């Protein structure tokens, strides 16, 4: 029964179901909802009239757990949110706590962190491209993308022992020194990667059917993108030139030059082009960073027991999915008083209803794909 304190919403006219309007329930077990997302589609024939996302199937209460763990103990939980881009989650959390402490990672740690985060961005975009193309019916790109992603995961495994939920960083810097041959592996991956992205483009970009399935689908204007708080490739696809790595540089991004790709009319095709271009830019960053990794310590002197002075901080980084923000409140004890994580996937998903109206069922799948959501991050 509804919460008594909430007045029944007056303006919601109880819509008598139109004669031919049907509710199609997509998910939570559906091959292309990228996780346990349930979408209630109101259909008129095959055209989507309205939609409602039901989420929470993967809610693990990460923020509640944070209040019962010390700062260092909570770090591995962060990887389990956006499990496709665990490294950048870790970077965001570690930098937020470092800000809380008023400490800072040494230059060498910051450069290695940048390299690993950019590699993770490429891996996340590769995974997105493979599954997105698969949903629209192109079977082959998936295997090319996973082949490249495998190389990156090998580098992660060699560096910190894990491939997916890596827990690669520690508050204050890095746990492990880079293994010898780290630079060689990164260069070995990045050198041919540009040609690889050309292969994907050859398969898809000039493909008539791919254009027919992505141009003009799921249009999100720049004004709406900002109003709906979209971030990352979703907002850049609509033409807003905003990237936290440039606006508020963190780690070692201020030392490297790279462009921010943007689309024109904010449809699925523009977001696809933006993400492809971002992969190329990440490769450029990695190559520049690997060229000169400064020597020096990899861990700041912040001691074993972290007791940040009371207060709060909001630190946001540019995760592959968008702006990943950490709002941490400290009460001076060793355990954070409150950790709030701004999930880019959840907030990008809000624009889903506006983007999907007027399209057909087949487009719903393309639109879910273009938002690049991961349900671990949406439900936390």
């Amino acid at each position: 029964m509804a919460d008594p304190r909430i007045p029944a919403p007056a303006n919601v006219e109880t819509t008598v179901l139109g004669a031919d309007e049907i509710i199609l329930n997509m998910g939570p077990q559906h091959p292309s909802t990228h996780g346990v997302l349930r979408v209630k589609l109101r259909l008129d024939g095959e055209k989507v009239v309205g939609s409602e996302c039901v989420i929470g199937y993967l809610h693990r209460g990460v923020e509640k757990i944070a209040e019962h763990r010390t700062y260092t103990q909570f770090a591995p939980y962060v990887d389990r949110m956006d499990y496709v881009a665990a490294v950048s989650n870790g970077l965001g959390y570690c930098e937020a706590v470092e800000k809380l402490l008023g400490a800072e990672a040494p230059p060498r740690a910051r450069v290695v962190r940048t390299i690993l985060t950019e590699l993770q961005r490429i891996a996340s975009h590769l995974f997105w491209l493979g599954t997105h193309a698969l949903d629209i019916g192109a079977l082959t790109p998936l295997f090319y993308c996973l082949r490249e992603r495998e190389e990156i995961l090998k580098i992660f495994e060699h560096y910190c022992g894990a491939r997916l939920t890596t827990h690669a960083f520690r508050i204050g810097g890095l746990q492990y020194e880079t293994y010898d041959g780290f630079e060689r592996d990164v260069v070995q991956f990045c050198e041919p990667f540009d040609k690889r992205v050309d292969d994907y483009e050859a398969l898809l970009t000039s493909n008539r059917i791919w254009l027919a399935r992505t141009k003009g689908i799921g249009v999100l204007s720049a004004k709406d993108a900002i109003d709906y708080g979209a971030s990352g490739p979703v907002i850049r696809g609509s033409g807003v030139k905003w990237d936290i790595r440039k606006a508020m540089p963190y780690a070692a991004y201020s030392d490297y030059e790279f462009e921010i790709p943007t689309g024109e009319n904010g449809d699925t095709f523009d977001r696809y082009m933006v993400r492809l271009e971002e992969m190329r830019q990440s490769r450029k960053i990695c190559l520049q960073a690997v060229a000169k990794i400064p020597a020096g310590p990899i861990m700041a002197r912040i001691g074993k027991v972290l007791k940040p002075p009371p207060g709060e901080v909001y630190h946001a980084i540019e995760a592959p999915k968008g702006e990943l923000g950490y709002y941490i409140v400290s009460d001076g004890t060793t355990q954070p008083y409150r950790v709030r994580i701004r999930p880019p996937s959840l907030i990008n998903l809000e624009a889903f209803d506006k983007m999907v109206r007027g399209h057909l069922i087949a487009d719903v799948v393309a639109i879910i794909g273009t938002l690049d959501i991961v349900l671990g991050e949406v439900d936390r």
Partner: protein
Amino acid sequence: MANDSEEKQPAATPPGEKPEAPAHPASPPAAAAGATPPAKPAAPVAAVPPKPAAPAGPKPAPLDNELTKRYKSKFGDAILETWTDRNQAILVVARQKLAQIARFSLKDEEFDYLADLTAVDWPRREKRFDVVLNLYSMKKNQRLRLKVHVTPEEAVPSVTAVWSTANWLEREVYDMFGIIFEGHPDLKRLLLPEEWQGYPLRKDYDILTQDTAWVRENLGIESGQ
């Protein structure tokens, strides 16, 4: 604080107000520890001073710059306090005026992007909840944090009309804290099932408790670890 300095703070940390070198031990303003904490969360109450083993970071300091002046001139006493903590501006505003302040921030101060809306539960305080809005201005590349102190019974005016992204964020705050947002188009739980009893992120909601009735009825298992 190398990377922070590039982070353009409102009025780039007013000259002279630069927090002195963090050498001296931070005054122990631990709000939570204080018995009957005064309104200001950071009032220095003599709690056990944290061991200065960790380098004591910057402590919250009152903030006064053109931005706060413009807000104060427009809303006068509705702006209760202005702080800067770790180089980030915080405005504590009155609950009633939140809608107007939000619209003012969007229209005149061009904070066109609501990065995040959340809440913090300080059970020992009389106005128990902090509703926190993290704003960001694309044009000025600045962040601003609005805070509202609320008791569980009071309803917070919804800012969904100002920034559409607040819709789900407010639903999640209601779901986790039980704070009512009046004027919200469709306020119901976002993550937990609709019939769930209790608000998990409240401090008094222990980590092991579950809505055993709901679990037994829907999942058919005798819950509890």
